[in-house]
């Protein structure tokens, strides 16, 4: 039985965000001229305050609130802090884009905060209903963000497509929850776990229910075959939307899957493992092959993200504590890499306009050597070449997977990884080997700090890889 904590002692960061976001929205509506810049600044401040509250003011150890439907442990603290930091950067990206496009809308930072709130609830959920609330809040805010971001006319279609798929995923999730409720008469994870261990566990409704829930979360994860919606949006909408869709929901969904796999689904782990492995192999296959067809840089990183999700799922499929720990470590590296990469994408501009075609990156190293070098470091890390963070993230996943006996899968996965190396290499080739064909605008300082921080992390990860592993191990221990 989990210790019960007070509401304020457990959910203080969420409460801060909720009160703050309502206040900011009201402020934005009434403060006409200064609304945008003030709300943007205050949103970032709010997220940072919430991050501090997560780390410092959400109690010690593991405890639950709201009748055990909301849990706080080291795992949730670590990943919420990561998530909030990612969201701060996303507001920065949105700001950079909107000032450039001269389309300043104070609702965008608010939608990002709401999304952060939803995803925090997802990470902390310890009850299928609170999970549903979290997922819905996330979905609504993401759709809101997509609609208010003014993509191209063609993109509007993919936006609608995304919204429809989100509704489908909600339906899946709801169906899964219903199946679980009918077969176990419970919604709380602990009770479900207990009920399933009492009975023989692997009954058909439970199995199908878990498949539904995994499928619903796979839409957010953009793992193949549920990747369509996210990829379309990533391609057509402004860069900050792509960056947001490919990082924050992935973090939250992986957390939910990790919590489910170690908690209520533990009794059906063999079935779950197969599902994860199939999703993993499909994602890696599609991600590593389709990357060659991409001509748009955002589409390119969409496929890169799919490959990474394959690795994350492989970590989850390992099931062991080493697997979960490796997955969390991979998630941290993935989030920071993606942030840096998208900062590079946003910063590569010609005459003040961002460039998206891969061919337009030719010879960047000759004109903007620092930008090109950071971009190259991040790309090499995406490819998983040693020295860089991506490699260490991958090797821990491999160790966990082989430890659980998935040797053939690891062979297939590494084959896909070898193929997918050529994607980043192709961009590096055009960055460094080709003649510069155009003028590139100078890099704005805030984007530069983001990409520099990310590049530095990726480059120096080799030194503190062990340290990060200790942290992720501690987080994993709180989950088990």
């Amino acid at each position, binding site marked *: 039985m989990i210790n019960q904590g007070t509401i304020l002692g457990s959910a203080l960061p969420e409460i801060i965000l909720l009160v703050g976001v309502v206040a900011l929205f009201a402020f934005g509506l009434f403060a006409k001229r200064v609304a945008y810049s003030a709300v943007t600044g205050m949103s970032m401040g709010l997220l940072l305050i919430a991050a501090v509250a997560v780390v410092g003011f959400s109690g010690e150890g593991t405890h639950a609130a709201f009748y055990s439907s909301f849990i706080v442990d080291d795992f949730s603290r670590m990943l919420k802090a990561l998530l909030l930091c990612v969201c701060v950067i996303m507001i920065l990206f949105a700001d950079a884009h909107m000032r450039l496009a001269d389309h300043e809308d104070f609702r965008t930072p608010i939608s990002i905060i709401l999304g952060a709130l939803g995803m925090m609830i997802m990470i902390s959920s310890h009850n299928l209903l609170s999970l549903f609330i979290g997922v819905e809040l996330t979905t609504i805010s993401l759709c809101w963000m997509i609609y208010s971001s003014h993509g191209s006319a063609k993109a509007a279609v993919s936006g609608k497509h995304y919204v429809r798929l989100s509704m489908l995923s909600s339906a899946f999730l709801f169906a899964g929850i219903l199946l679980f409720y009918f077969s176990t008469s419970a919604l709380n994870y602990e009770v479900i776990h207990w009920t399933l261990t009492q009975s023989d566990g692997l009954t058909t409704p439970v199995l199908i229910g878990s498949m539904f829930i995994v499928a619903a979360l796979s839409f957010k994860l953009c793992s193949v075959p549920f990747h369509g919606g996210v990829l379309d949006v990533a391609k057509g909408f402004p860069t900050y939307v792509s960056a947001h869709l490919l990082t924050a929901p992935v973090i939250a969904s992986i957390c939910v899957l990790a919590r489910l796999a170690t908690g209520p689904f533990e009794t059906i782990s063999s079935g779950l493992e197969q599902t994860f492995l199939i999703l993993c192999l499909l994602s890696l296959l599609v991600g590593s092959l389709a990357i060659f067809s991409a001509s748009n840089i955002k589409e390119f990183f969409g496929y890169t993200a799919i490959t990474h999700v394959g690795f994350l799922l492989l970590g989850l499929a390992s099931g062991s504590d080493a697997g979960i720990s490796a997955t969390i470590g991979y998630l941290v590296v993935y989030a920071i890499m993606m942030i840096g990469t998208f900062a590079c994408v946003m910063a590569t501009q010609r005459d003040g306009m961002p460039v998206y075609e891969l061919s337009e990156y030719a010879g960047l190293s000759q004109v903007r050597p620092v930008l090109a070098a950071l971009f190259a470091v991040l790309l*090499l890390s995406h490819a998983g070449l*040693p020295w860089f963070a991506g490699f260490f993230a991958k090797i*821990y996943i491999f160790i966990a997977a*082989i430890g659980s006996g998935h*040797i053939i899968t690891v*062979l297939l996965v590494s084959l896909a990884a070898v193929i997918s*190396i*050529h994607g980043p290499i192709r961009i590096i080739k055009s960055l460094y*080997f080709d003649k510069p064909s155009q003028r590139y605008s100078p890099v704005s300082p805030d984007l530069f700090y983001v990409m520099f921080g990310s590049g530095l992390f990726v480059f120096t990860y080799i030194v503190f890889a*062990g340290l990060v592993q200790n942290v992720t191990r501690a987080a994993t221990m709180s989950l088990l």
Partner: protein
Amino acid sequence: MVDGFPILSIIIFLPLVGASVVLITPGADDVSSENIKSLAVITTCFTFIFSLSVLFWFDISNAGYQFVETVAWAGSGIQYKVGVDGISILFLILTTFIVPIAVVSGWKTIRHRMREYIFAILVLETTFLGLLCAVDLVLFFVFLAGAIFPLYYLIGIWGKGNAEAASTKLISFLSVSAASLLIVIVLLYSDAGTTDLVELKAHSLSHTTTTYGWPLLFLAFCLLAPIWPFHRWFVDAVASAPTSCSILLSSLVMNVAGYGFLRVALPLFPQGAIEFEGILVGLSAITMIVSVLAALVEKDIKRLIAYMCVAHMGLIILSIFTATQTGVLAALLHMVSFSLVATGLFLSAGLLEERVSSTDLKAFGGLTVRMPLFAFAFLIAILAAIGVPGTSGFVAQFSALVAVYNANGGIIVFVAVLLFLSALIGIRLYKTVFLGPLEKEGFKDVADLNTREKYALFPILALIIFAGIFPNSVWSIAQTAVLDLTERPVSRDYSPQTFAVPGDGSQAVKSGP
């Protein structure tokens, strides 16, 4: 040497420090590019001097690792652990010796983006030194795979001819090699819970690890070596690379493969060499014959030398996997000798290319008249490649021949064909370039070696002669470590021994005659 002084780390990371300084050297004009070049030479020379100091304090009677430094690093028992034994110190010194020469070789030919060029070479030196000193497999892998991208970069930007295709081919083959090596390491780790080579050697591996591990490891090093049918990337890369990169590829990357076989494959999978004997001997024989025949008809000097390198790599692998003391010692000397020879030959090819901007054999002829000194230097390198007594090549090839004959009499036919044909090729090469009348117009005023080229070429020739007259100087350093390596159960020509099949304690296999 003072205990606890991190001399190996200093040697490994000194080039990297130099590379960082190169990166922040201000200016983009000729003066700054001169400064960068001097900085590179100073860094690499100091690295060489430091590595000599390691040799000075090295205890040749000790078979284990010396100058060991251990720092907890990536968690879960993966450490930053470096050290040298009798085998790695040879390659360490060879590497630090060759890299300054490689730097100097690009002095005039590299005209653009000097900063990035020097940066890549210095990073490459760090990766080579690191993997030679690594006692931890993950560290070994990090350095090995870290070398791939600088090589790709060097060939892609400064290469000639079909450089883009060659660099893509290089990265494709080497990334497959790295991936399979990585899986082997992960397998070993999940089996033994450590990646420390010393502890792994003492651990008896499970059946799964050997079943999957050995073929993958074999594939990894065959791709790297390169063994037929994977040798094309190497020939293409070497042919289109700038001179410095050709030198590094032919002398160091090939050594890495041989070193990997000695360091990882033989001690950890002693069974593998026996189970795979047929495949090993077959592949090596095919490699030798196919590449020496290709060299025979090749028209391009750089490709010709590259094929010669591949052919001799076949012989080296063959003598390593006799797993006898003679065989391994012969292979070591052969690797050292052929690295020097290949360096000398590629340097010469680079010199010729600088003067006539062509590497086509047809473009040359009668150069002795104009370049007597160069002709003499080239002759020595060719004689060493052929294996004429008095050069290192003779001792190396002769002892390899003996070792291979002792282990497997029939295969000697292939080795004989290799040696005969390579002699023919060497003489033909020398004749085409240097003998005959000087007819080509462009050669009438071609200059002999200048001071820079003398400084690059003569130390190699001196070492070739030295190692030819005193081969024991090389062998005495490595002997204890090699004895320790080959005294493990695989030795077949000394005493028959019984040993257990890993992972199956009940069964015992009788080996030997």
